[in-house]
C-alpha cells in the first residue's frame, strides 16, 4: 500500500493524536484512585463530621434540618460526588474527638470550624485542602462609643472569655501599640453576653463567628458594630486523611467550585439559564460543556454545575449563614479578592 505524503502525515497525526488521547484517558483513570471516593460511592452517602452546634457554621433550624457554612460544604461535596446534595450523613463531633474520628475512617471529611495549623497537618497526619472561613479575634463595640478601629479602644473595657488566647492577644496588642484596652473576664460566653448587655463593658471579643453570634443575642443588635480589624488569625477549613490525594483534590476543588461560581456570577437561580448556551470560555469549562475536567477528579463533567445548582455559590451560602440573612457579619476577609477579600480560587485550567 502506498500513500501520498500528505495522507501519510494525516494518518501519522491521527495515530499520534489517538495515542495521546488514549494516554491521557488512561492516565486520568489510573491516577484517580481514591479509596475514600470508592467507599463514598459504594455507600451512596457522604459521611461528614461537623460541629455539634455553632451559629453560622453548623446549626439546626426549627425543623431540625442542618444549616450553616460547613454544612453547605458537606452538601456541595455530596452533590459533586454522588449527584445529590441530600445524600449526606452528618455526624456532630465535639472538639475533643473530631480528629480521632476522622483518623479512624468513620467519616470521610471533617468540616468543623477547625483551625488549620502546622501541628495538625504534620503531627496528626491530616491534610488541609482549603480555607472556607478566614477569621481572627474580632471586636464588637457599642455603636454610641463612636469607635471605628481597634487602636481607638484605648481606655475601653472589653468582656472576654477566660482561659483562651483572647486575653493574651489583647495584652500583646496593648504592648505592641502602647495603649491600654481593659478586659473583664468570664467563665462562659453566656455570662459574658449578659455582662455586655448590662453595660459592664464597652464591647466583646472572640473569633469572628462567635462575636457575630454574640451580637445577635443582644436585645438590639443594631446598637453594636464590628470593628474591621482582627488581631491574630484563624484560617478555618476542612480536614481529610493524608494518603488519598484524589479525595483531597475533590474537597479542595469543590470549595473552589463554589467560589468560581461566584466569580462567574452563577447562582442557584440563574445557572440553568447560563448553561443553555454559554459562550464565555471560562463558563464553558466550568460548566463542563467544554473539556473533560471532571474526569481528572474522578467525577463526571456536571459535578460543578450540580454544586452550584443544589447548594449555591460561596457568596449565596455566606449570605444565608453569616451574612445579612443570618448573623449579620460583614464578608471582610471572606470576600473575593476582587472585592478586597482573601478568597481566590485557583484558575480553572
Amino acid at each position, binding site marked *: 500500500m502506498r500513500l501520498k505524503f500528505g495522507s501519510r502525515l494525516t494518518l501519522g497525526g491521527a495515530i499520534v493524536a489517538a495515542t495521546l488521547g488514549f494516554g491521557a484517558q488512561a492516565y486520568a483513570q489510573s491516577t484517580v484512585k481514591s479509596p475514600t471516593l470508592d467507599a463514598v460511592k459504594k455507600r451512596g452517602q457522604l459521611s461528614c463530621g461537623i460541629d455539634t452546634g455553632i451559629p453560622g457554621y453548623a446549626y439546626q433550624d426549627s425543623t431540625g434540618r442542618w444549616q450553616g457554612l460547613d454544612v453547605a460544604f458537606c452538601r456541595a461535596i455530596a452533590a459533586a460526588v454522588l449527584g445529590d446534595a441530600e445524600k449526606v450523613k452528618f455526624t456532630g463531633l465535639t472538639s475533643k474527638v473530631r480528629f480521632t474520628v476522622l483518623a*479512624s475512617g468513620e467519616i470521610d471529611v471533617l468540616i468543623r470550624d477547625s483551625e488549620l495549623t502546622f501541628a495538625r497537618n504534620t503531627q496528626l497526619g491530616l491534610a488541609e485542602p482549603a480555607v472556607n472561613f478566614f477569621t481572627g479575634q474580632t471586636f464588637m463595640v457599642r455603636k454610641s462609643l463612636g469607635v471605628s478601629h481597634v487602636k481607638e479602644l484605648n481606655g475601653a473595657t472589653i468582656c472576654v472569655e477566660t482561659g483562651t488566647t483572647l486575653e493574651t492577644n489583647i495584652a500583646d496588642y496593648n504592648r505592641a501599640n502602647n495603649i491600654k484596652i481593659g478586659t473583664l473576664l468570664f467563665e462562659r460566653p453566656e455570662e459574658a453576653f449578659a455582662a455586655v448587655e448590662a453595660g459592664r463593658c464597652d464591647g466583646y471579643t472572640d473569633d469572628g463567628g462567635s462575636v457575630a453570634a454574640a451580637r445577635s443575642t443582644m436585645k438590639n443588635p443594631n446598637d453594636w458594630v464590628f470593628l474591621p480589624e482582627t488581631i491574630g488569625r484563624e484560617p478555618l477549613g476542612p480536614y481529610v486523611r493524608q494518603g488519598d490525594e484524589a479525595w483531597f483534590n475533590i474537597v479542595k476543588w469543590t470549595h473552589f467550585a463554589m467560589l468560581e461560581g461566584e466569580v462567574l456570577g452563577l447562582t442557584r437561580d440563574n445557572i440553568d439559564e447560563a448553561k443553555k448556551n454559554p459562550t464565555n470560555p471560562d463558563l464553558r469549562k466550568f460548566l463542563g460543556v467544554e473539556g473533560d475536567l471532571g474526569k481528572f477528579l474522578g467525577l463526571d463533567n456536571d459535578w460543578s454545575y450540580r454544586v452550584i445548582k443544589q447548594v449555591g455559590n460561596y457568596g449565596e451560602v455566606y449570605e444565608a449563614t453569616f451574612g445579612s440573612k443570618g448573623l449579620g457579619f460583614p464578608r471582610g476577609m471572606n470576600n473575593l479578592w476582587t472585592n478586597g477579600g482573601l478568597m481566590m480560587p485557583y484558575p480553572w485550567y
Partner: protein
Amino acid sequence: MSEAGSINPAAPDAGVTAPARSFERWMGWLRRNLFDSPANSFLTLAAAVFLALVLPAVWNWAVTQADLWGDSKSACGGQGACWVFVRLRLPVFIFGQYPPSEQWRVVVAVSLLIGFAVPALRDGTAHRGLWVALLLTLFPLVAGVLLVGGVPGLPFIDTTLWGGLTLDVVIAFVTMAGSLPLGVLLAYGRRSRLAGIRTVSIAFIELWRGVPLLTVLFMAAVLLPLFLPNGATVDRLVRAMGALVLFNAAYMAEVVRGGLQGVDAEQEEAAQSLGLAWWQTQTLVVLPQAMRIIVPGIINTAVDLFKDTTLVTIVGLSDLLGAVNQSLKDPAWLGLAPEGYAFAAVVFFVCCFAMSAYGRSFERRLARGQGRQP
C-alpha cells in the same frame, strides 16, 4: 390551709369540729417535721423567706410574662420566658431528626412499650411472668423493626437521625433490658464456688466500676473504630448502648449480689433439705426474697441510667439535652438557653419522679406482703 379560717372560735368546746381536728393535725405535723428544734425552726423560716423571694420571680418569668404563641423570636416580649421556642421545637426535642412522615412509628413503638410494660409492672396481672418475658423479647423485636425499618412498607431510618427524648427512652430501655439479666448472671458468678467463674466475674465488675462512664463512652465511640479493620464500622448508637449495658451490668451485679446476701443462708439450706434442686431453690426461695432488697437498688440504678443517657451527646448522638443544645445555636433563636434547659429539666424530672414513685409503691406492696413497715 383554708381550714384554719373556717374555725368558729365561739363553737362550744365539746363539739370539736372536723375542720378543727384537721387544723390540729396540720399543726402537729408542722411541729413534728418543721419546728421540732430551734435549729430546724430557723432553717424552715430561712427556706420560707428564700422561697418567698424567689418563687414570685420564677412565676413571673415562667408564666405571667411568658410568651407561648407566635412563630418567631420577635413574638417574645423579652421580659419573660420565650416558650414559643420550645413549642416550635417540640417535634425536634421529642423525635430528633426522625423524618416527620415516619414519626408515627415512634409513637406506635412507645405505645407498645406502655402496653407491654403496664401489665408487666402491675401487681395482680394474670401470667405476669409471661408479660415480663414478652417485654424483654417480643417487644424489642417489634419496636426494633418499627424504628429501624428496612422492611417493605417501612423505609430504613438511619440511627444518626434518631434523637430527642426518643433516643433517651430507647437507650434507657435497651440498657435496662440488657444489663439486668447480665447483672444477675454476674452476681451469681461472683458468688460461685468455681474459682475461674468467680475471678472472671470479679474482674469484669471491678473493671467497669473502676472506670468513669464518660471514658467508657469515649472508648466505644472513638477507639473501637481504630481497632476494627478499615472501613468496618459499628453503628454509633449500638456502640454507645453496648458500652452502657456493660457499664450498668456491673452496677446491677452489685445490687443483685447485695440482695442475695441479704437472704439468710438457712433459707437455702431449708430449701435443699426439702429436696429442691439449685434452680428451684434460687427461683422459688432466694430470688423472691432478695427482690425486696434489690428493687430499690434497681430503681435507683434505672433513674441514674436515664439521666446518664444524656452523656451520649459527648459522642455525637443528640438526645433531648443534645437537641436542646443544638437548637440554642440557631441564629434565629439565639439566647434562649434558660427556656431550653428549663424544659429539659422538667421532662427529666417528670420521668425520673415517675420511676421512683413506682419504686416506692412497689416497696410498700412488698413490705405489706412481709407484714412489716418499710
